[in-house]
């Protein structure tokens, strides 16, 4: 079958230029008054025209492509809802991974709508500004697709009923919340490096791709659909982030050390932010296509390292220590986090459970150096208690890292003692602060006045700012219904509902 020769038209480079380069230099106001945020971070820009958008998106192509994606996406979500697609997931336990994802990520999507709008206004170059405006609208799209998904699952499963309140108040959700707050209170160039580059370019695949594949493996068509549909926008975001970094580095050699420091801060914060994905992948998917270890090997060790090799020509150094730590932790992280979530299940808006024999054998296979040696015995011990009717629930809350706000569950892996808890401490203005790692301690030391303001949920509870001094009072303040949204999957209303579904 032959096709007509492709029609000739105005080439993309020129079309894009004519439709986007519509700005001008201000004449009756001072440039620094019109663009007041450009100098405050010490970044030097000499020529905004050097900013190129490889996708060269104009509004006509934007609407055309986005409309096509949305038509497909909402058709699938409608079909999923009409056909009770939630009945076809592998197991209701899976939905708890979705509860974490949606309550953590949805509010962040909303936060970066204003983040990118602000940055679009702050930047002078049209190429940069237009790409940021498109990203702001993309993030609004993502936020809405996720709210639609929450809305569907909320009809059947607990824990989705007030994602905004729990995002603001719960201890494990303060990890993404503080990440977003940190980025939103940075200047425009740091915002671009933090979200546009570190999160959208380096880390986004580590969050979305394995999780969305996991959703596909477990029958969750709604999540696969919004996830992959959002990811197609992400390719533009990734490109914008990389382009921002290349542009800043090429504009002036003085920018290099500033960007290096931001990259190290935000890659580390981003890695800690995504640590919860490790346990979602390894423990919360009844069918796990990929292990956290495998995802780290592809997305950080292969892709991430390749990226830094590219950036070497600009004077950026690969953060060797960080990569070393990530590699050392990859065989421990998911296990350490899941056992933490297991014991603190009273104070969570999700259910947790013990891994069954199949899952543990999968974990043995994927983690031959660590699972059977350090972690299977822990779960066996918890099972002994559960089998006696004494399922263990901790009555306390973990201390959090002042910077990343992940609980201090980390151990001395690189020192050869993976079963010994370790953390770091600083004194600042007469107060003591705690950190999970040298990475987080370093971040605090560079901006102490920012991080002393961190709102840490367990600390706030003990200061009496969270509804009361008892667990029931705090749960009420969290808008968590005790015995419904929290505790073990076994015995939960979700389980009762699921068994009814499957037997009808």
């Amino acid at each position, binding site marked *: 079958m032959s096709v007509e020769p492709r029609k000739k038209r105005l080439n993309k480079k020129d079309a894009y230029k004519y439709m986007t380069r519509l700005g001008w230099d201000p004449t009756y106001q001072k440039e620094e008054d019109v663009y007041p945020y450009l100098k405050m971070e010490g970044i030097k820009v000499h020529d905004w025209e050097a900013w190129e958008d490889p*996708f060269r998106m104009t509004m006509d192509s934007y609407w055309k492509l986005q409309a096509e994606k949305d038509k497909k996406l909402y058709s699938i979500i409608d079909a999923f809802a009409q056909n009770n697609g939630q009945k076809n997931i592998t197991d209701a336990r899976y939905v708890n991974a979705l509860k974490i994802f949606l309550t953590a990520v949805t509010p962040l999507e909303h936060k970066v709508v204003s983040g990118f709008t602000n940055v679009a206004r702050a930047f002078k170059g049209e190429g940069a500004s237009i790409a940021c405006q498109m990203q702001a609208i993309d993030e609004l799209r993502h936020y809405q697709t996720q709210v639609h998904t929450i809305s569907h699952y909320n009809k059947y499963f607990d824990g989705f009923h007030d994602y905004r309140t729990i995002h603001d108040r719960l201890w494990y959700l303060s990890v993404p919340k503080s990440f977003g707050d940190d980025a939103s209170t940075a200047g425009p160039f740091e915002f671009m490096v933090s979200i546009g580059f570190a999160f959208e370019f380096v880390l986004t695949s580590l969050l979305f791709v394995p999780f969305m594949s996991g959703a*596909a*493996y477990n029958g969750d068509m709604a999540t696969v659909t919004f996830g992959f549909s959002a990811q197609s926008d*992400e390719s533009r975001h990734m490109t914008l982030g990389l382009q921002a970094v290349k542009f800043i580095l090429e504009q002036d050699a003085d920018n290099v050390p500033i960007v290096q420091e931001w990259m190290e801060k935000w890659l580390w914060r981003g890695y800690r932010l995504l640590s919860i994905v490790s346990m979602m992948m390894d423990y919360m998917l009844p069918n796990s296509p990929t292990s956290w270890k495998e995802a780290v090997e592809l997305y950080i060790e292969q892709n991430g390292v390749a990226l830094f090799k590219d950036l070497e020509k600009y004077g950026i150094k690969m953060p060797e220590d960080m990569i070393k730590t990530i590699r050392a932790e990859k065989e421990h992280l998911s296990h350490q986090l899941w056992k933490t979530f297991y014991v603190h299940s009273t104070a969570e808006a999700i259910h947790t459970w013990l891994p069954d024999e199949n899952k543990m054998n999968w974990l043995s296979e994927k983690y031959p150096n660590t699972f059977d040696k350090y972690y299977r015995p822990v779960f066996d011990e918890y099972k002994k208690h559960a089998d006696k009717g004494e399922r263990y629930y901790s009555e306390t809350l973990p201390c959090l890292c002042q910077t990343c706000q992940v609980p201090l569950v980390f151990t001395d892996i690189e020192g050869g003692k993976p079963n010994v808890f370790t953390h770091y401490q600083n004194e600042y203005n007469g107060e003591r602060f705690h950190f999970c790692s040298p990475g987080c301690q370093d971040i605090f030391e560079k901006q102490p006045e920012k991080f002393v303001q961190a709102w840490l949920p367990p600390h706030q509870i003990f200061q009496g700012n969270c509804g009361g001094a008892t667990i029931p009072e705090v749960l009420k303040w969290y808008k968590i219904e005790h015995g419904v949204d929290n505790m073990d999957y076994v015995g939960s209303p979700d389980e009762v509902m699921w068994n009814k579904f499957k037997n009808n």
Partner: protein
Amino acid sequence: MSKSIALLCIQATDEGRTIAEAIREDNEGVVITNKPAMIQIEREGRIVVNAETVSEALGRDWEPEELQLVLISTGGQIDETDDEFIVYWNN
């Protein structure tokens, strides 16, 4: 020293599968792996998606920007022209 591996992940839809086959034609040594709902495409150095090859395979006019409708993720820098969509590392 070997080059870094360029990565392109696309949706495993009808169109995605056809595009993957067009990519296989034009990119010697490409490694294509099927994952749930996704087609993972890897190649040392660069992956070139050629609009003419894809148009031929689909039986209709196809523009490089349409790749966005099936695109999930990339590992590498991007260059999009009127004729090609390229993912590449420069190291």
